[in-house]
């Protein structure tokens, strides 16, 4: 199916096309080439983009930008009194793109398949269909964070996947989903298109004709295409986005980098001296000039973190008073120096501090070489530390080597993102919970700093069991205090969710003023944007 772009191979493409049938163009800097794999069970780096955004849908969509959950394939859900069951009620009239109706059986089957193929959901005992529109999830323990986790699982049609011999290895080239754009068209190694699902349950919201995804070998080339007006919506890191993009056409070009990504932290290996001492961690944290880190290192795309460690996505949970009161996340080189003096790390005659063992106070900051922004951050930290007499070396091998060091505990400090979920539960669980602490030498997949606090365990369990939000809030308050006390990691800044767009061809983008979704094109809320955009129609064309 050849498409009707207005250009007969003239070398330009969709730029300026406002026929009304223009395709929403999304560049992917992380896919040099695509393989036709629309299997939603494949890992994120493998599956073709938009599979879980435009083709398959979940029961609900949680939007961290406004903290709201939008019912999607499910219209409602409720947690049982004991917190051990969750029941989702499915929407009526939803059809798969092959015309078959969505049933509760599909949902139940999806979870069974997901657990079989990829594991996870340890707390889920079973998922059972009740009638055609109700799914009951039985949990092994009261676990409130499970609600959103279950709700955001994308659902696949049982009648299709049952017949697939090896679902894990299937490439699902012609996917059948409930999403707005399910029809794969013109699949090339560097671009493909998704066209409207004829059976979509919200036909009114399928205003755009389709989506085109472009592959790029890196930020540079992807940004070039975007800045040049050849794509509509990007999520790659654009250096100096104001100057290089917005200023080019201030009327149409815009970006919105909500601070709702996961918290980026300076992680220290707490199994090693002197990082086992919270006083040291706090003092080092105080030495860091977060303003400079965010302004220069991160291009001003984010803002400094506070001592709750919570990212912008959890603003509703934040204990603002606590955040304002504690000092160890505020830059103060003098205080930091004093704290280090007090902790027993005095300056030597050369102005450099010594460890208790008598060795100089030096250590590495390991960052993956591919993350140039974080590399700058590490360099700024290094400069800040030099001011308080601590020497840091920035080590930047390939990410594989860095992560391998994190995983086995063979590193000093590093810059790491934290786990992110709908609630702060996951964040605190993996920064302070003892269950995620693995001994040095054993592979850890989270909690690279290897810190656990029994008090946190208790609070986390209580949080999971809390039946309502008020109860949860109380626990999170306590967790924030504990975090501010322990300083298990040094929070630097919340990761911005990059997102920039031009509204020459499409309007209706989420913005800071209208945060109906984040501006990510690879997240859970993407589907909200896809069903909100309107093509610009220009009659003259």
């Amino acid at each position, binding site marked *: 199916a*050849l*498409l009707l*772009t207005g*250009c*007969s*191979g003239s*070398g330009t*493409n*969709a730029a300026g096309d406002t026929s009304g049938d223009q395709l929403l163009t999304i560049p992917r800097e992380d896919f*040099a*080439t695509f*393989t036709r*794999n629309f299997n939603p069970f*494949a*890992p*994120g*780096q*493998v599956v073709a983009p938009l599979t879980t955004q435009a083709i398959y849908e979940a029961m609900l969509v949680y939007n961290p930008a406004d903290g709201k959950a939008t019912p999607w394939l499910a219209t409602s859900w409720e947690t049982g009194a004991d917190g051990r069951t969750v029941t989702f009620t499915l929407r009526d009239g939803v059809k798969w793109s092959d015309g078959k109706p969505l049933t509760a059986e599909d949902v139940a089957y999806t979870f069974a398949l997901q657990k079989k*193929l*990829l*594991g*996870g*959901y*340890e707390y889920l005992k079973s998922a059972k269909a009740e009638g055609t529109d109700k799914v009951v999830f039985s949990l092994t323990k009261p676990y409130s964070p499970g609600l959103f986790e279950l709700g955001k699982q994308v659902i696949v049609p049982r009648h299709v996947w049952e017949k697939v011999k090896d679902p*894990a*290895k*299937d*490439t699902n080239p012609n996917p059948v989903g409930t999403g707005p754009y399910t029809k794969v068209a*013109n699949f*090339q*190694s*560097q*671009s493909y298109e998704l066209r409207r699902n004829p059976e979509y349950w919200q036909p009114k919201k399928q205003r755009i004709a389709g989506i*085109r995804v*472009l*592959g790029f*070998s*890196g930020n*540079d*080339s992807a940004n*070039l*295409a975007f800045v*040049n007006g050849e794509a509509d919506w990007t999520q790659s890191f654009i250096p100096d986005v104001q100057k290089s993009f917005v200023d080019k056409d201030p009327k149409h070009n815009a970006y919105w980098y909500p601070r709702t990504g*996961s918290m980026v932290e300076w992680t220290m290996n707490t199994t090693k001296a002197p990082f086992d001492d919270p006083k040291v961690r706090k003092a080092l944290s105080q030495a860091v000039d977060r303003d400079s880190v965010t302004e220069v290192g991160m291009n001003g795309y984010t803002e400094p973190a506070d001592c709750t460690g919570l990212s912008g996505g959890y603003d509703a949970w934040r204990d603002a008073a606590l955040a304002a009161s504690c000092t160890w996340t505020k830059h103060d080189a003098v205080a930091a120096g004093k704290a280090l003096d007090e902790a027993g790390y005095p300056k030597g005659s050369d102005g450099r501090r010594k460890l208790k063992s008598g060795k100089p106070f030096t250590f590495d900051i390991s960052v*993956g070489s*591919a993350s140039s922004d974080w590399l700058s951050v590490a360099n700024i930290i290094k400069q800040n530390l030099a001011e308080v007499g601590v020497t840091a070396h920035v080590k930047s091998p*390939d*990410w*594989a*080597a860095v*992560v*391998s060091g994190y995983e086995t505990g063979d590193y000093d400090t590093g810059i790491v*993102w*934290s*786990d*992110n979920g709908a609630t702060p539960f996951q964040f605190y669980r*993996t920064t302070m919970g003892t269950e995620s602490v693995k001994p040095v030498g054993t*592979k850890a*997949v989270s909690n690279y700093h290897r810190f656990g606090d029994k008090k946190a365990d208790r609070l986390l369990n209580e949080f999971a069991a809390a039946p309502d939000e008020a109860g949860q809030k109380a626990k999170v308050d306590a967790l924030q205090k504990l975090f501010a006390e322990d300083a298990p990691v040094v929070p630097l800044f919340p*990761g911005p969710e990059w997102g920039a767009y031009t509204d020459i061809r499409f309007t209706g983008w989420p913005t800071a003023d209208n945060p109906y979704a984040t501006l990510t094109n690879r997240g859970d809320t993407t589907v909200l944007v896809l069903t909100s955009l309107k093509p610009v129609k220009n009659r003259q064309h």
Partner: protein
Amino acid sequence: MRYILRNLGFYLLAFWASITLNFMLPRFMPGDPVSRMFARSQSQMQPEQIDQLRRLFGLDHRPMWQQYLDYVKDVCTGHMGISISRFPTPVSEVIASQIGWTLLLGGTALVIAVVIGNLLGILAAWRRGGVLDSVFPPLLVLAGSFPYFWLAMGALYLFGMTLGWFPMRHAFDVGFSPDLSWAFLSNAASHLVLPALTIVLVSIGGWMLGMRNTMIATVAEDYITMAEAKGLSPSRIMFRYAARNAMLPSVTNFGMALGFVVGGALLTEVVFAYPGVGFQLLAAVQGLDYPLMQGIFLTITAAVLVANFLVDLVHVRLDPRVRVR
């Protein structure tokens, strides 16, 4: 023919050595593909999935020698396994989808550089002291001195972005699907211009100088004087007597370069977002995708060996002297 057979023996040995190297290298690298993938996904993956994924990808925990034996067997039977970073696409398919573009870009650039470079070299040597001989070599050497990516980016911004003469990315525009229509071919050709031209620009100097120098040496040979004495026409002497003999070292280098074409033009692919094996390999290495890495490595090695072997054959045709060696 004994010459060929002997070389064949060497090639087999070299092939074995390099596939062994290929087996060892990725296994020395720290980490494994799943944690790598996990690290890249930046918390979009559940930690719980990791073990499951490891199982899914069938990562090996058998003893090295056993893996090695299987690997050698697979290599010999042409099985290259399933790519991890492109799971579950077979490695052969991943490579197949890229190699065409790689060959197109690399081959075009190489052929242009070799043909033009050698022609320039021949003419420069023939007209010693002429414009071609005094102006071109330093100029081309200067062009070749620039870092390739620097030149490529400059060209991209100048001719692609500012002047808009050439497309800036990809092998062809979206909306086309590869076929043999004129529209597609011309589109693909226009996309080839900048990447190929920049490669030609940095590599042509080497070819030209090489040819010039051998050609000068050749022109001083007695048989050229003899040909002159025979009253042959200058063009005949230049091409049939001098250039043909001077070409021999060029042919060897051409073979080498031809083999390496398969490895892709990594920096070009990065700058121009051109599809190809080079970036695929970089991605495979960074994603610790052993099977894909090994597959590509194998393909390149095989290509280099085949190219060299072909060059040997050509050499035997061109230079009767090697036949007796």
